């Protein structure tokens, strides 16, 4: 019950965040989408024992979060919710790979733990960058960007439709779930049979709704083609944004700045 409400509020919250007007929000969605993709590809192209070279990549989400005035803890909590799958797969690394790769005085770390940490850092970075992208761009703009960048129009329109009706249907589903739990005592009626009826009814209503929408669309002159009247403007700012960040990512990919900086410090101390 709380799950469905949370999901609803969650979507709404992300939507609100994306509706703000900051520098990060004003950049063309295509530039942000492309930069985020390059970011993800560079991050996951690192070897599996890499930790220190990944750290500079936190700069990108940090900058976007502060420029877009996004709530850090909220985004971090969202990442924590989805991390279990990565943990489930990654936790086998320390069990299998026991080669000691790192010594720090009395402590020694096996390769498995290092690669596990690396997976967790990569996960935080990639998942975080996607959340940041959507929180400072908005779903509709991402769909527009996708379409402009060559995704099939039917698919982009389908995404817009889906997003539009998620709110309506989650609201409806949450009312049904609410009604079910109010009538259920001792967990009765929460099984598969009632669930089937419940979803069946929701589905029938959904199909009826789709028919009404289709009729309404026909009344407004729908001919199978959806025209979206919104313009995207990419100027010099977007070009600089994309190129500068990409150059930064690629530089960080080839030069391990933390290691170099750390060496300078430790050598000057010793």
């Amino acid at each position: 019950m709380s799950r469905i409400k949370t999901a609803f509020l969650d979507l709404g919250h992300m939507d609100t965040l994306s509706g703000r007007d900051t520098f990060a929000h004003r950049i063309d969605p295509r530039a942000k989408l492309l930069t985020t993709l390059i970011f993800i590809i560079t991050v996951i192209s690192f070897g599996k024992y890499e930790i220190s070279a990944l750290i500079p990549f936190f700069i990108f989400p940090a900058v976007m979060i502060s420029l877009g005035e996004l709530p850090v803890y909220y985004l971090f909590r969202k990442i924590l919710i989805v991390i279990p799958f990565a943990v489930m797969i990654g936790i086998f690394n320390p069990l299998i790979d026991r080669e000691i790769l790192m010594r720090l005085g009395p402590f020694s770390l096996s390769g498995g733990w290092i690669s596990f940490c690396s997976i967790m850092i990569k996960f935080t970075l990639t998942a975080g960058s996607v959340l940041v992208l959507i929180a400072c761009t908005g779903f509709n703009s991402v769909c527009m960007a996708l379409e402009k960048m060559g995704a099939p129009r039917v698919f982009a329109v389908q995404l817009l439709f889906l997003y539009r009706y998620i709110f309506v249907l989650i609201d409806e589903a949450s009312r049904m779930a609410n009604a079910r739990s109010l009538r259920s005592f001792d967990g009765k009626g929460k099984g598969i049979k009632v669930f089937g009826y419940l979803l069946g009814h929701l589905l029938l209503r959904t199909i009826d709704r789709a028919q009404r929408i289709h009729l309404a669309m026909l009344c407004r002159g729908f001919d199978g083609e959806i025209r979206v009247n919104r313009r995207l403007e990419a100027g010099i700012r977007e070009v600089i944004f994309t190129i500068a960040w990409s150059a930064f990512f690629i530089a960080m990919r080839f030069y391990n700045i933390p290691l170099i900086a750390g060496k300078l410090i430790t050598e000057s101390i010793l």
Partner: protein
Amino acid sequence: MHMADALISPAVGGTVWAASAGLIAYCSKKVRDDVDDRIIPLMGVAGAFIFAAQMINFTIPGTGSSGHLGGAMILSVLLGPYAAFLTMASVLTVQALFFADGGLLALGCNIFNLGFFPCFIAYPFIYKKIAGEKPSQNRILIGTLAASILGLQMGAFGVVLETLFSGISELPFGTFVLMMQPIHLAIGIVEGMVTAAVISFVWKSRPELIQKTTSPAPSGNFSLKYVLTALLAAAVITGGILSWFASSHPDGLEWAVFHTTGSEELETPGHGVYSLLTKIQGKTAFLPDYNFKTSKNSDIKKPEPASIIDSGTSVSGLVGGALVLVLAAFIGFALKKRSGTRSHL
């Protein structure tokens, strides 16, 4: 069972992305060419339905845990495979963007695992074969159940293969398969039962909705030629990846053997893994300095303090990493402060 970006390599992610993108383009064309334009709003709303339906739980008898609905099979039965695939892809896209459930690059893998297998393999070759041209209540039930279970099994196997080829996880193939398949068999049975319950409910109250896609009408017509072409394409792509990995895979095995025999050479495992990774990645011809490389060099110069120098590099990595992390946070706060004061003005 959503794949995460952190578990795949760029090559695997990119290849599967290309396959999924091709399928999306192909399905979009099929849907656009379809005479019946009622399908467009239906797809959008059906996708939202799957989303909403996944939020409602039900208790699984005898276990106390709860399950929810998997989407692709219901969508296939209602919309036909092409529209179902597109809808599934869009559901997964929203999940990836809003809930970080599977990353942007892993989205290709997720669309392939959860969309291609149920819509283009399980639906036409299992569900339609069992349900037949004149479906009955029982045939639909059995067909849905079988197709859901097998579709999910194929998807889970896809996850295993993608993880394996990416080489990020240490899990050996056998263990991983033994772990994934039974778990997803259980999930598949539950999902299949729910799907069957919903579909048979729709069949009882509005049979024409299901008949439309099962009967050989133009909207639900499924040409075997295209399936075969798609399968062939998939086979070529998979074959391409497999042959690509065939040469480097023995390295991985060899490395595992070295590993279990406890060879002292530190650079051997590192080397094996990285040569494997570079072969996989192709793009990243340059190898950054890793600990083992330094230790290898220092081994040649003076053999005894290898571990000290090794720890030296790790310490500098740690110090530098912490430094940059602080710097990143500082940049973040500084920018925030600046934009904060500006917004007050």
